[in-house]
Every structure is written in structure tokens, then in C-alpha cells.
């Protein structure tokens, strides 16, 4: 009898546990998606800001370094935001990110190289180089969005 109750208890808690994990996986996915998008928006914010300054649309030249550092830092943490293979949810991330890991890695490398190059150019004070490197940053965004992000609805 005791054996039975124990087994039943174990079975029930196993079911509870599995239901629990099923739920947590979902909750995790949506948190992971939100976090990934937040980091991407930070990337977008720094890129948009840097373009506005470089084009002279706003006068805050002294802020350029902060954007360059921000972009470089975000590019470094970007891979971690794709570690979790999320499924479904409010995301535009394509499944190809995890199916073609090598191709995706290449795009990560491109943004990291471009962001580091932009930071170095800003630090050196070479305007022309900074302009060109910011252009490569933009290319790296388009390159990855082209292959690995669903089109805008």
C-alpha cells in the first residue's frame, strides 16, 4: 500500500514537474524573444543615432563615441541572444538561424568586425574612415536581416 502511494506520489509529481517544465519552456521562449528584441532595438538606437550625427542632422558630435562603444558592446553580446532556439511566439527570427548555424555565425562575425572597425575609426578621429565603417555596419545589418529575419508584416 505504501509502495503504491509512493509510486502514485512520484507519478503525480513527475506529471506536475513535466507540466511545469512545459510551461516554463514557453515562458522562457517569450522572455528570450523579448530580450533579443530589446538588444536589437539598442543596436538600432545606436546605429540610428550614429547616422543622424554623421549626416549632420543633429549637432551632438561628442556623443558619437558613446554610440560607437554601445554598438561594439551590443555586437559582442548579440550571439548570446540567439543561443536559445525559440519556437513560435511574437518573433521575426527565421528557423534558418538554427538550421544554418555556420551561415548565421558568418553574419555575426560581419557585424562584430564592422562595429569594431567603426569604434576604432571614431577613436582615431578620422571622419572619412568613420563614415565608411558606419556604412559597413549598415551592410552587416541588411546582410543578416536579408537571410535570417521574416519580412516586416
Amino acid at each position, binding site marked *: 500500500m505504501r509502495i503504491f502511494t509512493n509510486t502514485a506520489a512520484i507519478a503525480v509529481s513527475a506529471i506536475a514537474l513535466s507540466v511545469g517544465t512545459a510551461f516554463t519552456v514557453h515562458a522562457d521562449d517569450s522572455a528570450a524573444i523579448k530580450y533579443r528584441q530589446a538588444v536589437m532595438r539598442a543596436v538600432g538606437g*545606436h*546605429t*540610428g543615432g550614429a547616422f543622424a550625427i554623421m549626416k549632420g542632422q543633429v549637432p551632438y558630435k561628442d556623443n558619437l563615441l558613446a554610440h560607437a562603444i554601445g554598438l561594439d558592446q551590443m555586437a559582442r553580446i548579440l550571439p548570446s541572444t540567439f543561443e536559445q532556439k525559440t519556437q513560435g511566439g511574437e518573433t521575426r527570427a527565421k528557423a534558418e538561424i538554427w538550421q544554418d548555424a555556420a551561415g548565421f555565425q558568418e553574419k555575426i562575425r560581419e557585424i562584430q568586425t564592422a562595429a569594431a572597425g567603426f569604434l576604432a575609426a571614431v577613436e582615431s578621429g578620422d571622419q572619412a574612415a568613420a563614415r565608411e565603417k558606419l556604412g559597413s555596419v549598415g551592410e552587416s*545589418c*541588411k546582410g543578416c*536581416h536579408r*537571410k535570417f529575419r*521574416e*519580412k*516586416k508584416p
Partner: protein
Amino acid sequence: MQGVPQEIPREEALSAWCSGRRSWCGAALLVFVTFSVAAETTAEIERLRERGAYVLRASGCVACHTDEDNGGQFLAGGRAIETKFGTFYSPNITFDREQGIGAWKAEDFFRALRHGIAPDGTSYSPVFPYTSYTRMRREDMFALWVYLASVAKSARKNTAHELAWYVRPRIVNRVWKLLFFESGVFRPEPGRSEVWNRGAYLVKAMAHCGECHTPRTRFGALDETLAYAGAAKGSSGEGAPNITPDAETGIGRWSRSELVDYLSEGMLPDGDFAGGAMAEIIDSGLAYLKPRDLDAIAEFIMALPPIRHDADGPEG
């Protein structure tokens, strides 16, 4: 005669240039050929070639006819184009005589762009957007032809399309054309500005924005009641968003200069960057356009009637 594309005999080039023009053209041509100063002809061909390279970029030919992802040669084709009818593979349009279009006459080329008809008389699928190019001016088609003659040849063999059985026979294209296609020329609207008209020509005869941004009916024809109001995913490949100036579902909140920036480098007003087919169209085409032409495109797009339409919404 240095600089003249070797693949086009000079007489053919010049008579193609004249055909369809006023009758004095032939007479002038005779005088021209007889007394021509070689340098002038060379300069004219150089000018045409430059214009042709520009038309090629503005018309998005490169995105489809170069298989960039697989390291394909410029304009050598082989790029897969997914549609709901199956996968098309773009043909080789370099001047290789066997595998490309090197054995064509200029007239064959004009007929393909203007009427969607191949040299053997069969009709092309509207995946090749002759539905837009039909409006292209003859001198622009000619410039394209002169430019193509100067592009490095490739002997890449064409890949057969992989299509559903019911669209495989070429006759289907002919029937489709009878129902939904009319060849035509671009007519400027007199009531509109020069800039608007230039934009209209670029959008409708070259950059074919509507081929992606206008939804299609079940038969693959453009639904003009929803012109530029966005196509759902699946109707023609990945679909495309609403670009009419509607504030909620379109780009009504964008400024004109933001639109120009987007078309030239791909950046959205919030610092995000274009992806998908649009990133390709920008990188391989629109990025090469002069600021005044991008501005004309923006003028035309911003003046479209705003249409509230959520392409991926419940009503598609």
C-alpha cells in the same frame, strides 16, 4: 573604332536605334555613317553604355539574374525564385552565344521586354516582370542592350524551372497574357510635375515596386484596387508591406528624406535596417541611383492615395 561593343555590328546597333523613330532618322543615319567622325560615335556608344548600366540597376535586373548567394557570375542567372507555382531559375543574360543571349538581335531583346515573347515565339512567365518593363522607353531598352553587350560572358547552362504541372506548358503564359497583360508605353501625366512624372516612370517602368508591394489575385494578376498597399506572405513569395502613405498601416509617418535614406541605404526611421527581398533590391539596384532619381521615386510614392490595408491581417 575603339570602345564599340564587338558583339553588335555597328549598322545593326544604329539601325535598331533608328527603327521606330521618325523617317528622317534613316537619312540622317546615312549621312552620319558616311561622314561620321569615329570619336563622336564612340562617345555616343559610351554614353549609351553608361545609361544602360544605370537602367539595369534601376530596374532590379541584377537581383534576379545574378545568383549572388552561391557566388554566381554577374548576370549569368541560376538564381532560384520561389513562387506559389514552383521554383523559377533566372536565365543567363550575358552575351554568350550558346548559353546566353549573344545570338539574339536587338529586336528580340525589345520584344522580350515589351511583349514578354521569346525569340521562338513562346511567351515568358510574368515572374520576369515584363509587365512593368513594357512601359520602358525604347532608348532605355536600347541602352540596356548596348550595355549588356559589354558584360563579361558566362557559359553557365540554364537550369530548368521546377513548376507545378499545370503551369509547365508555355502556352499557359500566353493565355495569362491574353487575360491580364497589355503591352504599353509610359505616358507622362500633363497635370503633374516633372519630378512626379520621372518618379512614376522609374517606379512603373523600371523599379517595378508594385510587382512586390501590390497584392495579387488568385490568378497572379496585380489587384490594382490595392495598389502598393502590401501583399501577404505566400501570395508571391515572401510578400511586402504597405507603402502607401497611410499613417496606421503604411508609411504615412515617414518624411520624404527618411524614404530617400531607406531606398539608398536601407535604414528605417527607427534605426532598423531593411531585410528580405527589399535589402537585395536596395543593395544590387537602388543604392546606385542618383539622389535626384531617388527623390523623384519618393515624390511619387508620397503622393499615392493612402490605403488602409494590413497585408498580413485577417482579410489579407
